[in-house]
């Protein structure tokens, strides 16, 4: 009788398919960020002028909001493993609420750009900015719905999957924030 060989993937925390999704999303956003910086080389003054119209402090606040939301999701997983359903639901509700705050601040930035006549087609900077941050915002919205679903299921496995997706959204933002808003 043969013993099954241990795979390095056995050590992977959480569901393998969620990690496949996380890696896929990171690859898409990573390519987008590299494309953004590559196109910036063709018009540095234009990109700098366009970036000045963004809310960099608001984006910094949004980073604080999202990493705090990720912290609540991580605590929710600990509560799920401890069998504390009410606590895990409260923590996931807090994480989702902060996701809503993030989307509200993001919508304000889009509204201000729109009011200033700056759209998707105004400059390559805005094309990349709206594609990258808009796609990310869609993931935040999907993550809020997913947190609601796993909060309803309230099992450790479900909460682990939902929290992993939420942390991926968090991870993408901490890489996107300096590239699009600061440098």
């Amino acid at each position, binding site marked *: 009788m043969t013993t099954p060989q241990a795979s390095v993937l056995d050590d992977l925390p959480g569901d393998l398919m969620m990690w496949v999704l996380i890696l896929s999303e990171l690859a898409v956003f990573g390519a987008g960020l590299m494309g953004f*910086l590559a196109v910036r080389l063709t018009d540095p003054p234009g990109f700098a002028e366009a970036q000045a119209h963004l809310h960099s402090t608001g984006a910094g606040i949004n980073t604080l909001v999202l990493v705090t939301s990720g912290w609540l999701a991580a605590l929710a997983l600990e509560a799920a493993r401890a069998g504390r359903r009410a606590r895990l639901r409260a923590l996931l509700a807090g994480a989702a609420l902060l996701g809503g705050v993030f989307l509200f601040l993001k919508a304000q930035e889009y509204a201000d750009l729109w009011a200033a006549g700056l759209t998707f087609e105004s400059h390559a900077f805005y094309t990349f900015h709206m594609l990258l941050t808009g796609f990310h915002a869609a993931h935040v919205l999907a993550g809020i719905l997913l947190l609601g679903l796993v909060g309803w299921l309230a099992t450790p496995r479900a909460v682990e999957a939902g929290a992993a997706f939420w942390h991926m959204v968090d991870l993408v933002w901490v890489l996107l924030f300096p590239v699009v808003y600061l440098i």
Partner: protein
Amino acid sequence: MSVTRAWAWLIALTATSTAVAAIGLSGRWLALVVLALAWAKAELILNRYLHLAQAPNIARGFALGLALFMLALTSLAVAIP
């Protein structure tokens, strides 16, 4: 490191990123500093929020991929004439 301590580090690193941009650091130095801070934040999220610290072999693979990606981003960011 607990997730709460990781969160405190993430808050501190984010505040530092925003502060160095706000105090007027610009150009290549700003890019080098804020991308290094983003790298540190990404490692914290991978290892503490996503618990890769519990799987050192996989964590090393992610760390290598992230290092190469950050190197590419930094090269593009500082290549402006």
